[in-house]
């Protein structure tokens, strides 16, 4: 019948179009070359040169995902596709150490003694002291030498501090405060923390990058951050200076953590080896302002040599076990301040 003929013609025409679109626009995946999925809380400026060099050196393409420490931990532990978490201090990652792949890099022989005793699920990558970063233009005559100076009423509302629940550098500062102001006894430090929180004037930042950028851009006069971020700001000609707290500086190594379920263990090992190699560590120390874990690498001229810093030892086990409790306590005091 004629009617059916027309209908059939239409169907054929439509089918032809669909087939054509399909053929013409078929999206096919490019065959994955060697790759590695890295999640990192490090600043972007810090990771790019190292990653690029790693890619050029090994031919492995890195899929880089940048996020905060706790989000990074979450994805390395739960996402099978993520091979490596790069960064995150031992204090923050401590509770999860059993969730990582066990690997000892040959570079460990060249480590400074302080970093030789860590477990095999972490590959120590750099040493990150907590520091105060001061905006030279905004601070005026106010002297800042340590935590005690932060209680200066002139600084109320001008202090940049991240949420210790989400930013590991902020948590480290919290630990640092408790130990330094409690004079070795963290429980005695809460008095200071309470006063410090009232100095924040309710301003708590969501991520560590907001802290150093906030100070560098002049939103805040002083920020509690980590050394490398401050050095990066210095290097990009921001008018800031670094203050090592005279009450004591806690410095914890951060590491490279390989996912237990990684499907690219070989590449992950290459990554760990590369990042702890002398070339990479040397470049990192001299150009990126981070302290190397190796004993054969000279640090940047922008950072104060280790022996001049009042190094404050912490009981890492205690910190790890008390972490949640301390964060809760911090939040409680913060809320109290807001409500009262």
């Amino acid at each position: 019948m004629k009617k059916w003929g027309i209908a059939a013609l239409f169907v054929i025409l439509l089918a032809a179009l669909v087939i054509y679109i399909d053929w013409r626009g078929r999206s096919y995946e490019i065959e994955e070359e060697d790759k590695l999925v890295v999640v990192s809380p490090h600043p972007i400026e810090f990771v790019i040169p190292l990653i690029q060099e790693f890619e050029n050196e090994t031919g492995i393409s890195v899929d880089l995902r940048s996020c905060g420490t706790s989000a990074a931990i979450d994805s390395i532990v739960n996402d099978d596709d993520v091979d490596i978490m790069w960064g995150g201090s031992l204090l923050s990652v401590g509770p999860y150490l059993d969730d990582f792949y066990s690997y000892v890099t040959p570079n460990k022989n060249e480590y400074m003694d302080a970093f030789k005793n860590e477990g095999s699920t972490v590959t120590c990558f750099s040493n990150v002291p907590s520091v105060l970063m001061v905006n030279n233009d905004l601070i005026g005559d106010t002297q800042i030498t340590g935590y005690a100076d932060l209680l200066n009423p002139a600084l109320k509302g001008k202090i940049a501090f991240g949420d210790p629940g989400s930013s590991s550098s902020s948590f480290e500062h919290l630990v640092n405060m408790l130990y330094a102001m409690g004079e070795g006894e963290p429980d005695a430090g809460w008095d200071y923390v309470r006063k410090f929180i009232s100095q924040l004037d309710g301003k708590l930042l969501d991520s560590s990058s907001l802290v150093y950028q906030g100070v560098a851009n002049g939103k805040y006069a002083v920020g509690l951050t980590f050394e490398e971020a401050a050095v990066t700001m210095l290097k990009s000609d921001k008018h800031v200076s670094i203050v090592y707290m005279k009450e004591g500086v806690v410095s914890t190594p951060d590491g490279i953590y390989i996912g237990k379920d990684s499907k690219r263990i070989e590449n992950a090992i290459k990554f760990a080896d590369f990042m702890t190699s002398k070339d990479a560590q040397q470049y990192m120390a001299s150009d990126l302002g981070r302290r190397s874990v190796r004993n054969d690498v000279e640090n940047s001229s922008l950072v104060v040599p280790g022996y001049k810093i009042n190094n404050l030892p912490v009981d890492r086990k205690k910190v790890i076990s008390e972490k949640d409790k301390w964060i809760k306590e911090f939040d409680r005091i913060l809320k109290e301040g807001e409500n009262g």
Partner: protein
Amino acid sequence: MAKEVRSFQENIRRTFIRFSIVPVAAIVMAALVLFIFSWLTFMASSNEQENKAASEEITQKLDVYCNMVDKTADALKKEEYSVPANDLFKILYEDTNEYGDIGNLIVLSPSKEALFTSKDHVPVFLTGSEYSNWGIWNVINKYKGQTKVTLYSGNLCVSKGVYEGDKLQIAIVYIIPKEVMSEAISSQNRYVLITDKHGWVYASNTRGLQDEFGQIDATISSEVGFIKRDGNLFYSYRTVLDKGLIVYTVNDVNRSVHMIWLIVVIIALIFFAIALISVKSTAISSVKYTRDIKKIEDAFEEVQKGKLDVKLDINSSKEFQIIGDDFNAMLEGLKEQIGRNKELAENVAFSQVKQLESQFNPHFIFNTLDNIRFMARIDAVAADKMIVSLSGLLRYSIKEVREEVTVKEDLDHLQYYLNILQIRFNKRFAYNIEVQDDIMDCLIPKLLIQPLLENAVKYGFNGQEKLTVSIRGYQMQEKLIFICEDDGAGIDEELLEEIRTNLKEDRNTSSHYGLYNIHRRISLMYNGDFGLDISSKKDEGTLVRITIPKKMSE
């Protein structure tokens, strides 16, 4: 299954729709399909072509730069690694004069000292002590003596280390001026990105499609063809250059897809509007065009109902006018024919009635004459009276030409017959006539009652000594009813049935002429539920009833 027969109007309508909407739909669909078809082809092929053109241009430029670095290496080798600045500039200008920028050609000693630079500055990643095994130097050391293209911190560098044996003599690095490379992509009207093989963007004409690190978007780098990214549709094509660069050309087809959807929607709306208008207008125009058909249909229906005085009046179109005129003519003819037929039928009925009437004569005459023969011997006076009665009856039957007579007249003439019966049966026969006076002037068929008497006598005297017949006549509801009742022997059940059956026939098949003839005459003369019925019981008597319409004489 029987297919429902559609009306002419519906057919006309469907035809209109079929020849208006369907072709429009077909053309629109075809146009749309062709449009999408050609748009797709054009979009994809122009993307690919421009990608190839850009790739070719970039490859060609890279070739020029690599050759230049090789030439420089040769020149340096020839000069035993002293650096002849003039020669180097000569090579440099020779190869790059087309591009408008000589770029930065740097010659480095193995200890990372800059021996020559065409732009008075050397980037720190070539001279800094921490770079001795990093970045470009890493490439030089790793690929000994090879000319390599590397993207390092935003600079596209061609590097080559000149080795004697295993010992690096001198290193050449050329930093390609970005503008020269960007030229290849800046004129394009789609997104073009040049990346190294790990996806780090070197040059692009858009800020989009790359992440915060300066790496190309993961979805773009992992797929070719139509790509969905953040709900937006792109068409992407790539060429991987043998120098390690990848050229991506990406069309943002979102807007086009939106446009196509818009066009589809608009066309659909227009089409629906056309369809709606067509359906409405075809409904109206089909009614208009089939109005005459409807008239003809109605006329036929009227005729079917028996109304023959319809007339078709059609002036709209010639064909229908002819049909209408022919119909009228045909109806006229039909009416005439019917009239003639009616006349004919009346004539036939009349003659039949006449014939039926006349049938009584021979029997009656025969019987009566037989009686007279006897009477003539026994009683001359009675015989004479019989002859007078018979002749009176015959005169009435023959001379009376009217079909219908008044009750009174018929009863008067019935007297002749009663006289004859009286004489014939003497005291064995008695009768009794009760006809109401108010029907005396009504018209009835001639000789209506006589056959009833004849019938009563015929079946009543069956070993019976005496027979009494009573005749009653009265009117009821515009009908005249005559009843002839006797107390005779009655009729056998079988015979009665036979008589009744015979009465229903059109033609007499039995010998019971009297009753049949009267029934037949009544039904021929009067339309309707009139006629004769009979009931009888053995040894008790017979009852015959006649029903005819009441009709007054004028």
